[in-house]
């Protein structure tokens, strides 16, 4: 039977009347579960989801995680199995892949966490960063759980797993796992990734009790590091101040966000990542900005394939910005004042906008009332300048020089050729030490790449010779950018 608010009332009323007391300290009011179109589920409409089928098909954890991460418990949930599939793939799938990556190499190297912990300060920056981010995640999750905000906790874990652990830490650290000897750097990588996985198992256990226990047990079965046979008997990870490095987290956050802005600009301008670009401009946000970004500069440039970063303190000549109120967030709060606010913002100078971006806040004084506002209450639009592409994210702005010089185009083509030749080596199962001879069909774009970057191509592909010929009859057909199509012959020498 649907016990709705009746129970809250009768619990409270009886406690007050009979005992002059409350009977509960914290109460979470739940929303409704509607169908994906927002219609109430009913037998009559045949739109009610069967809980048994759902759990049998997707598993309890994906169902639970979807429900919790999709909407706060007190809001209505538009139940859509597509959302469960998404959670299953993007969250559990990504975490599973990360676990699989770890076990694949840990089994090869025989890593059983038998070695003493490598002191954090001795670990490479990328390890220290992910441990600091993990520590921040633990703190945030515990705060959210304690505040009865499970949706917040779930979303933070999703961000960590997807953006930080898988797409950044593992991707950038890949080579440390698959290359080289079993040395301190490799052990550090294993210890770090292990800690991420086992900590995640604990943090996620309340929401997804099955997968969490599976992960915890699979890891602990080998290492025996944990005292308990089940994650549900364990304690939540205690925050470790020695892991916290806010400065490092900030600069890595800059690196991730700058890289992601540049990649989005490349995508929008249809310029592939292998095509090098000359320069990106970064407006300076604060006094620490240059120092912080400089420390992760190489990482950023390598990620986005750009040659240099230039910092600008005065963007007025370069970027023209406009600001508008965000009606979604301000409308409700300001109501009748919205018109006045629009007028006010229309009159703002570039310096006013810069000031807002730096401080991240503003107080509207309207009549006798004050309305504090934050960055999200504004829409800041940047007008494009010829030859440049500009994008912003939460105060951070990137301007990308999209001019392609013949030199850059040749280098881009050289990189494409390296990629294709390496693919050929792989499909033909050449040994990594095998020397080859490469003959390319002549084509003006390819010719300039070979002329300027022949040495680079030969070195990367272990080619003893790299030559152009007018008529290549045998070998593979290459599809290159700008609709260039030509034959290539690769031979062992």
């Amino acid at each position, binding site marked *: 039977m649907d016990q709705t608010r009746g129970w809250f*009332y009768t619990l409270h009323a009886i406690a007050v009347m009979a005992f002059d*007391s409350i009977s509960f300290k914290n109460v979470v009011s*739940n929303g*409704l579960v509607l169908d994906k179109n927002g219609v109430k589920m009913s037998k009559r409409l045949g739109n009610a989801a069967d*809980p048994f089928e759902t759990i049998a098909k997707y598993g309890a954890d994906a169902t639970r995680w979807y429900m919790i991460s999709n909407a706060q418990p007190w809001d209505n949930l538009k139940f859509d199995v597509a959302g469960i599939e998404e959670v299953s793939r993007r969250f559990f799938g990504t975490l599973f892949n990360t676990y699989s990556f770890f076990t694949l190499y840990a089994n090869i190297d025989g890593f059983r966490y038998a070695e003493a912990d490598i002191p954090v300060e001795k670990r490479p920056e990328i390890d220290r960063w992910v441990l600091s981010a993990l520590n921040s995640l633990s703190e945030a999750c515990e705060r959210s759980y304690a505040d009865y905000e499970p949706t917040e906790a779930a979303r933070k874990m999703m961000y960590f797993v997807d953006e930080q652990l898988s797409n950044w830490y593992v991707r950038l650290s890949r080579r440390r796992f698959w290359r080289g000897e079993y040395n301190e750097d490799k052990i550090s990588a294993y210890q770090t990734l292990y800690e991420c996985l086992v900590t995640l198992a604990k943090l996620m256990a309340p929401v997804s009790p099955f997968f969490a226990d599976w992960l915890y047990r699979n890891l602990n079965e080998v290492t025996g590091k944990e005292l308990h046979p089940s994650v*549900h008997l364990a304690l939540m990870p205690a925050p470790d101040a020695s892991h916290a490095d806010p400065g490092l987290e900030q600069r890595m956050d800059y690196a991730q966000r700058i890289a992601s802005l540049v990649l989005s600009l490349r995508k929008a301008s249809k310029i592939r990542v292998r095509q090098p670009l000359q320069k990106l401009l970064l407006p300076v946000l604060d006094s620490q900005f240059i120092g912080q970004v400089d420390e992760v500069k190489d990482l950023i440039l390598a990620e986005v394939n750009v040659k240099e970063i230039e910092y600008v303190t005065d963007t007025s000549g370069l970027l023209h910005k406009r600001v508008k109120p965000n009606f979604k967030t301000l409308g409700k709060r300001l109501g009748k004042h919205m018109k006045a606010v629009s007028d006010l913002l229309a009159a703002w100078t570039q310096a006013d906008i810069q000031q807002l971006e730096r401080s991240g806040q503003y107080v509207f004084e309207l009549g006798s009332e004050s309305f504090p506002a934050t960055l999200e209450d504004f829409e800041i639009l940047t007008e494009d300048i010829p030859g440049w592409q500009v994008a912003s994210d939460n105060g951070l702005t990137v301007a990308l020089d999209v001019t392609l010089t013949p030199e850059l185009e040749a280098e881009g083509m050289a990189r494409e050729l390296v990629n294709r030749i390496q693919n050929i080596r792989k499909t033909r199962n050449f040994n990594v030490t095998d020397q080859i001879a490469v003959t390319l069909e002549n084509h003006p774009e390819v010719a300039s790449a070979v002329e300027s970057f022949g040495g680079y191509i030969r070195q990367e592909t272990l080619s003893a010779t790299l030559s152009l010929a007018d008529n290549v009859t045998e070998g593979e057909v290459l599809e290159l950018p700008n609709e260039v199509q030509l034959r290539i012959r690769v031979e062992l020498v």
Partner: protein
Amino acid sequence: MYKEFKTLNLPQIDQEILAFWDAQKIFDRSVEERPVENSYVFYEGPPSANGMPGIHHVMARTIKDIFCRYHTMAGQRVERKGGWDTHGLPIELSVEKELGITRDDIGKTISVAEYNRLCRETVMRYKDLWDDITRKMGYWVDLENPYITYTNDYIETCWWLLKRLFDKGLLYKGYTIQPFSPAAGTGLSSHELNQPGAYRDITDTSAVAQFRIKGAENEYFLAWTTTPWTLPSNTALAVGKHITYVKVRTFNRYTQEPVTVILAKDRMGAYFTEPKPGLKPEEVKAGNKPVPYLEIVEEISGAQLEGMEYEQLMPYVQPDGPAFRVLLGDFVSTEDGTGIVHIAPTFGADDFRVAKQYGIAALLVKDENGHPMPLVDRQGRFVKEVTDFAGRYVKDYGQEEERPVDVDIVIKLKEENKLFLSEKYLHPYPHCWRTEKPVLYYPLDSWFIRASALKERMFELNQTINWKPASTGEGRFGKWLENLQDWNLSRSRFWGTPLPIWRTKDGRQDKCIGSVAMLKEEIEKANAALGLAQVVPQDLHRPFIDEVVLVSDAGEPMHREPDLIDVWFDSGAMPYAQWHYPFENQDKFRQNYPADFIAKKGWTKPGAGSIPSMLSL
């Protein structure tokens, strides 16, 4: 070696981990390994196993499970006693439906004992499915030792709580107008009317009736109602003291008779366009639109109208006292209608109150046992005395009929030159949350908890509770507490916790029983005084408890008040009754009170505002 897997198979992981939890008793260990002194108290708001588990239950249970698991991992001991909600209307209605009987058959074609036996059987029908979904979704709750609300122990704690309220003077019996569901055959509490979806838009036939003023030719008061079926029960009209009324000369649009009508000046615009000297009767023949009039004869204040008399509109039944007068009511407004409110003391809370205040009689007839009753019976049908409409349902209860009785009443008024205007009217109307049929406001003799006496304290203590989201607690719940009404405890049903109050025939003495031991003691007293050989029933439910006769201090026999209590009292009593407190587990109770955490399907937008009385309808 770490285990390696080709693909992720979450349902497979569920199976493996469930088997592991079972084999190693991980749930039990997760509770037992934590110290009692560091407890986190959770109350399970129990489901009824009478319905199938749905996806929303998975949602609700996930939320509960998350915080219990989190606090376990924060080092706390989190016991989760499960429970089953087993009483109440939903179960009774499903048994009625399966047997193909109605409420009236119970005690006639089927004994109450047999009926209640079926309820007890039915209520756990889907227990296995519930246990299954609980396990499969990974919801950790103790299903081995649940509390079950139909047990004698649970009922005994409810009795103990009621006795405590009784001793504090918080229980009383009153004859009031209450929401009543003819389809369910029982009164409803205001929190039941606040269920989401209780208010639904329906189209009624509204009427502006002409009440003929005594001693005047063709002069009428105009009063508007959306419930023409209450017109045969009219015994007064209410006006606002400070409202200005006008006497308007015009013609009746249906009969073209010349009439002089009285209504609030501010409401003129709803019925009239403009004065038109020399107006012809046929010019007001138009449909429902405002019409011209001849002239305004006079302006009168409400105070001047007080005490005026009019002729009974539909004289089926005669009043046993003064009636058909104009009263002053503070609730009269000029927001809608005519500014004159039709009063039927048997069918509206305000009507009842104002009529009592003025000593105006209600229209009543005698039922088969000689008890007074209103002109509509408990099934929602007109009594035989309302000859033209005898046996007709006053609202839509699924009956087959050519047209609603409201329409026939309007037709009759029209023919008798008693109708000024009739229109279709779309408005939200309360419906019974279980039968989905319309609710009537109906006079009932019920037991109440004087909750309103403690509303300030409830409000104050509510502010110490952490509500998620905060707006629900401070806003909706807080506002509701501020306007709290007394809690209608009585239910005229069969399967539920019996009201433990025995009364003498003259109603002068009451005894509230607070325990089985007390019942035994009182039975023994009665046996001695009345020469009976009763024993405490094995089962505290009806009909067995109904047979127990007690004795008053003056030696008169006392019979149990036949009502059951609102099933919501059962659920509100769970902090105490789950432990059979105070008869057992006193330590356990103290360690587990109050709860750190509860969660339930909550507070969604209600269909409409407050409960309308007949007056505002």
